[in-house]
């Protein structure tokens, strides 16, 4: 068990653009770190550079306190669980798990002890003598984990291990992985494109897009303080509402104008605004600003001409019933906004409604740089 440090790591495959650009982060000893991002963002490449299956174009990777750039995978003492499991086809489950131990020249007794123990922990004792060909996806995934676990490696690397597991088993498999890590205290670096998985498993998440790290933080950090538009849009289900508004400041109060033919503005009175917020937004006066608000933070209400602050009118387009809650699509000018509601609402499609906002729940981003406007 050890910490893993990446310093300004680049990877280039011969294209004009690097596949991984200047990745720097630390995974502490015993931490569960998740690399999250869409396909092609460089997360798997980064993981494979830590394993040693990809060369490092520039930068440093350290495992423990050793620089591992020039070490082969054999020498790094890391274990990897592959997306495709990569089980050893000619061998039985027992032999698969024993395989890494055999090269370590352990005694047969010792090997047997370790294999049976790991098999018990992962509930695969009953399939130990089966061949890997005929196993179900979930079983293969557990064998893959067992094979990595049995080695007691320095770092445990996992490349989208759940992406080929059936949806109904995935929940449980996910919980098993988390449980295993909590109990064993292994240092784990885990790659996924599924933000729900990332948020459920990680101590901290590294969000990547197009080879660049967008933000590093806990799930709460990412959810409540996304560093840029990409992170805001990637984390959270249903995704955040993003609107390009025009900001006006009148009498110390804020007015966000929604794009469209009708003059619709979200107004906040001077009294409810924190001075820091006003300061930060000041330079966007009379300019475009990107406003984000999560569907969970919007409140759907009946129209009320008296209430003019913190609310905008709209038309209910669609309402979906999802059991414990509902999702409403509301048209405001040219923009469609999503809002989480009670499972049942007293409105019909086509009705006039309004959406209530609270300033603290709103996120602001610069339209050009897409970075968060700090307040």
């Amino acid at each position, binding site marked *: 068990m050890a910490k893993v440090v990446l310093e300004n790591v680049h990877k280039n495959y011969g294209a004009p653009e690097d596949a991984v650009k200047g990745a720097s982060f630390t995974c502490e000893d015993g931490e569960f770190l998740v690399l999250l991002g869409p396909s092609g963002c460089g997360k798997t490449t980064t993981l494979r550079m830590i394993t*040693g299956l990809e060369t490092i174009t520039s930068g440093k990777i350290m495992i423990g306190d050793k620089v591992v750039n020039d070490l082969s995978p*054999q020498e790094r003492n890391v274990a990897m669980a592959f997306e495709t499991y990569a089980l050893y086809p*000619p061998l039985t489950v027992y032999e698969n798990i024993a395989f890494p131990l055999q090269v370590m020249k352990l005694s047969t007794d010792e090997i047997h002890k370790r294999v049976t123990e790991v098999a018990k922990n992962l509930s695969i004792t009953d399939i130990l003598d089966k061949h890997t060909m005929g196993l179900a996806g979930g079983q293969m995934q557990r064998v893959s984990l067992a094979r990595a676990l049995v080695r007691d490696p320095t770092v445990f690397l996992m490349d989208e291990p759940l992406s080929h597991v059936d949806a109904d088993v995935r929940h449980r498999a996910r919980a098993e992985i988390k449980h295993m890590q909590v109990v064993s205290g292994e240092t784990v670096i885990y790659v996924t494109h599924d933000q729900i998985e990332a948020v459920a498993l990680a101590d901290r998440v590294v969000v990547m897009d197009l080879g660049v790290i967008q933000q590093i933080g806990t799930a709460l950090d990412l959810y409540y303080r996304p560093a840029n538009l990409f992170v805001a849009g990637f984390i959270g289900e249903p995704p955040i509402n993003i609107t390009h508004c025009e900001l006006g400041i009148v009498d110390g109060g804020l007015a966000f104008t929604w794009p469209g033919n009708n003059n619709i503005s979200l107004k906040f009175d001077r009294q409810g605004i924190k001075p820091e917020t006003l300061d930060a937004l000041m330079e966007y006066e009379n300019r475009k600003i990107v406003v984000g608000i999560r569907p969970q933070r919007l409140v759907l209400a009946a129209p009320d001409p008296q209430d003019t602050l913190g609310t905008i009118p709209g038309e209910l387009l669609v309402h979906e019933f999802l059991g414990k809650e509902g999702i409403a699509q509301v048209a405001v000018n040219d923009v469609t906004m999503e809002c989480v509601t009670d499972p049942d609402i007293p409105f019909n499609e086509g009705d006039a409604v309004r959406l209530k906002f609270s300033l603290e729940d709103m996120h602001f981003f610069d339209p050009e740089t897409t970075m968060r406007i700090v307040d």
Partner: protein
Amino acid sequence: MKNLISNKIIIYGLMLIVAAYILFPLLWIFLMSFKSKMDIIAIPPKFIFTPTLDNYKALFGVSGAETLVTGSAFLSYFKNSLILSTGSVILALVLGLPAAYAIARFRFKAKEPLAFTYLSFRFVPEITIILPLYVIYQQLKLYNTYIGLILVYQLIALPLLIWMMRSYFEEIPIAVEQAAQTDGYSWWGSFSKLVLPLAAPGMAASIVLAFIFCWNNFVFGLMLGGNSTQPVTVGLLSFMGTNEVQWGLMAAATIVAIIPLFLLALAVQKYMIRGLTFGAVK
């Protein structure tokens, strides 16, 4: 339902006709090897006759009959074929397996052109290169040597082995080797313990196919081999004498010559189709 049955009948019927067309020469030779001289040259051709073992007996020198090719000569041709085919396949394995693995696993600029170049050795009819080769072999004193023939047989065996083994290697997911690497195995460890066992059936098929093609070769053996190195394909020519052709003996010799091939092919028939259509889909 009726349609399906009649379709089946048509298909099987056509297959029978094609099979008969292809197998007829073989069948004819087989029958001929059991015919007496009179039966062989009978017109119209005889399918019903009294079989005799005279040809086989004469071939192996048992009956004492006069033959254009003595029993021991025939056996030496057979031995030559064995030496040449086996030696060629072994050399092709040593050269070709690493090449096949490299082409299957690594990315490099000239990969496909190189692989295609190996394949192209099989496109060139042997006759077109045989004259310059003859001259070169005479000058290098490779004429009528086992080494010389084994070397030229590489033109037959190497492309086959490389292309077939390439596809078998490519079928093994590279993640398996990478997992073994991460688990601490050297390249050779993962190759010998995981890749080879998986590729073994494919390798067996490739070896047999290469062996068969080498065995069947005629032109190289004829032009670059001499008395002491002639394979059985060339040796059979000697049954055509100036005064007579010993058809029956030739037929018997042919049948004996193809028995090894027949047995080998039977053993790996499942994998044969793949080897014969390699390069078609890539």
